[in-house]
């Protein structure tokens, strides 16, 4: 909005007088708004917008506050993170943006809501292929997409391609084909085997579905115990959560009903992984604190919490994975760069529509 240039000096003065009262009202409004939001201008703060599961990262953020004295204000947004930050524009209070899935992270960068930062700490902790070359985004943890089977199953190893085998007809469970976890896997398969083969694969997998492609990853384990299916695709950390849930809880029963197999792509022998990550917001008002927070998130302490509280793979070399995850066997990460995967994301989503995977 253009400011005062439309006004003559004299009329501007009059308006100024008239507006003094309005100004007071607005200042009062500001104070009200601030008291609700806890936004009082304090240097020792950092504002985090995230789509990540609050329960997982809150303990890490609390540790950060204990260590540094910097308070972390959070808002957990589901969809529309980019749209909100964009609308807030140059006045956005956002300092750090945190999300899951490579596609979502690159979307942040492409929409211009991030800024490049330089940090030796981050560059040393994170392998070069897991961060933006210009410092616009950083991986914080790695998660592999695996197969859950009934604990008594004699399947020892499997490829992603084999899931299309008609022997699994009426036995396969998976969440919505449009979920980023699945579209990213499909995008990767398109890169390996081509669009045509991936479409055939997806069709065949649809034919194997035991129920609608819906729910969450944990539902795969639950439905295996419930006798609805024998095999399904899900992220590995959910198995870690369930298998370590309190004795006697429902989640524990589901976790105990399954075993985890790391599938591989036929071509490369690697397992598909996705990431969670973060970026510094373009107009971050607390830039230093934002960088500090990111650096803390790749510290040994925080990375170990990622591994043990959420059973993910730490992005930092040398930090141990949780023993339960280790028991699933060695993870051989598929060598295809994630940025290549992200390129096929839209195509993957269209394939899901095309074969009517969710119908």
């Amino acid at each position, binding site marked *: 909005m253009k400011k005062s240039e439309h006004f003559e000096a004299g009329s501007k003065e009059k308006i100024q007088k008239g507006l003094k009262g309005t100004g007071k009202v607005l200042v009062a409004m500001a104070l009200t708004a601030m008291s609700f939001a806890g936004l009082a201008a304090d240097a020792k703060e950092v504002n985090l917008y995230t789509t990540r599961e609050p329960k997982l990262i809150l303990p890490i953020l609390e540790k950060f506050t204990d260590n540094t004295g910097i308070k972390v204000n959070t808002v957990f947004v589901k969809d529309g993170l980019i749209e909100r930050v964009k609308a807030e524009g140059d006045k956005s209070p956002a300092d750090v943006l945190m999300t899951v899935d490579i596609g979502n992270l690159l979307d942040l960068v492409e929409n211009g809501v991030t800024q490049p930062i330089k940090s030796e700490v981050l560059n040393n902790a994170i392998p070069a292929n897991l961060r933006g070359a210009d410092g616009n985004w950083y991986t914080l943890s790695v998660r592999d997409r695996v197969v859950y089977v009934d604990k008594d199953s004699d399947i020892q190893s499997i490829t992603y391609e084999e899931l299309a085998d008609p022997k699994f007809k009426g036995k396969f469970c998976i969440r919505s084909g*449009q979920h980023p976890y699945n579209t990213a896997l499909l995008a990767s398969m398109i890169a390996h085997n081509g669009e045509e083969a991936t479409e055939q694969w997806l069709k065949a997998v649809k034919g194997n579905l035991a129920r609608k492609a819906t729910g969450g990853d944990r539902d795969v384990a639950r439905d295996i115990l419930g006798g609805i299916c024998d095999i399904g695709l899900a992220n590995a950390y959910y198995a870690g959560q369930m298998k370590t849930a309190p004795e006697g809880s*429902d989640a524990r029963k589901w976790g105990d009903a399954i075993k985890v197999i790391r599938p591989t792509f036929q071509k490369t022998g690697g397992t598909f992984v996705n990431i969670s990550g973060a970026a510094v917001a373009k107009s971050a008002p607390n830039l230093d604190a934002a960088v500090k927070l990111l650096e803390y998130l790749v510290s040994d302490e925080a990375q170990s919490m990622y591994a043990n509280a959420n059973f993910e793979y730490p992005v930092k070399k040398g930090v141990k994975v949780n023993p339960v995850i280790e028991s699933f066997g060695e993870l051989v990460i598929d060598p295809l760069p994630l940025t290549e995967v992200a390129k096929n994301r839209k195509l993957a989503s269209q394939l899901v529509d095309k074969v009517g995977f969710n119908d």
Partner: protein
Amino acid sequence: MMAAIVIAAIVFSPVASLFTTALEGGLEHWSHLWETVLPVASWNTLLLLLGVGVLVTCLGTGAAWLVTAYEFPTRKYLGWALLLPLAVPTYIIAFAYLDLWHPLGPLQGFLRFVLDIDSPRGLRLPDIRSLPGAIFLLGFVLYPYVYLSTRLMFLTQAAGMVEAARILGESPFGVVLRVALPLARPAIAVGVSLALLETLNDIGASEFLGVQTLTVAVYTTWVTRSDLGAAAQIALTMLLIVVFLIQVEKKARRRQRYSTIQRMRPMAAYVLKGWKKWLAVILGWIPVVIGFVLPASYLLVEAIKRIDQAGQVSDQILKAAFNTLWIAVVATLITVIAGLVVAWATRRVRESFQGNGSVGWPAKLASLGYAIPGTVLAIGLLVPLRLVDNAIDWITTLADRPVTQLLVLGSIWSLLAAYVIRFLAISVGSIEAGLSRISPSIEQASRLLGYTGSQTLWRVHLPLLRPALASAALLVFVDTMKELPATLLLRPLNFETLATWLYAEASRGTYEEGAIAALLIVVVGLLPVILLAGAQSRRSKGPY
């Protein structure tokens, strides 16, 4: 009148903003959609709407008639208990029933026990994650919209005519068919359209139950394919269809007038005897059990398990409950007052055009918000809210008191704006229905006796509108409290409501952890239901 125009403009702003976004999107995705999801999604959406529409009409009208026209044991309690499912959000009933009806859940477990089957594999029953499952669940939590409006109609309007029909020898069935149903039609229409709009815009339950609706297609286009322009185009197309359908329904009953100048009093209930009495008890309580008792008990059991494990209820969740309560109260007050202004202005406009149906535009514009899915509305609101901030910026700079922060976008004001815009349709609808029951001749009498227009509103209409205002406030309060998608996107830093708290738990896939929050949502939602029930039963007892 001016106020109504301003309100309508505010409600229209997110639609205008979506329209701009839609213009930015390309058109190439339409061929993809047309070849793939659109036919299926449209068919699913149609079936879902039809199914839910039929179910809520039967349940809502049937229940309302049963408790109004017949006397049987527990009728007094049933009258308000039938409102209870209002307190259960669709996303909660979806996950509650997924658990209850899962092969590992209590219902199928009990069945297997009775049938003596050991393993879940021995008995495969239909999955709740399906279109019929979605129709069933949505129907049983949304029928109170119809029940509430038709019961009000039966209570206040039907007595004289129903009794006349009975005296003239009409059979009970004939009374329903030829008197009660035609009388209740505007009320049914209001209730059903609210229920259907809620169904259409529901994303939580349909996505959870795996039903591919048009709304899910909008989400996929936007979230998975990052094409907001295209998503806005689909959303606006849906909006056009909705507006068209509402228009058709209104046209169909344009020429009818539904007001009476008789004293409002409840009809004499027909006392049921023998087996009929018990049949009425069973039929009447079924919707309450399915829509409320089962899911609420499930939540209670799960919540007790959690509290047992944790040893306490966390302070944060109590704070979230407090936030939920006060913001819902404030939003309800604003929405009901705005609804009254709009409904009154609409009546004025209509009168000055001699009952021409096409001039009820203030109400129509103001009702747009409810026809858009919550997240889409929130996205549409981002830009207008930012413009308000720009305006504030401009004013405060002129006044030499520049503010450096956003005061509106991402503040409590954003949330209030979203709630009012989204739920204004409910309050306008209820109040318009209430106004339509007040005969113009009452107003004419008041004007002849020397009151001005606003005096008439204050002294004559408001007291008569009390039941309509109460039901509007109830519906808006409960809906605000349950609202999730717009709240998630627009709320300030560190601000949690019960719904966002529940989402936080659910996003990790640990729905059972959210049981305490879900139970609190249901409990907070019960408060106004009980208040309203008290008011209604007081009314139906004494002479009015």
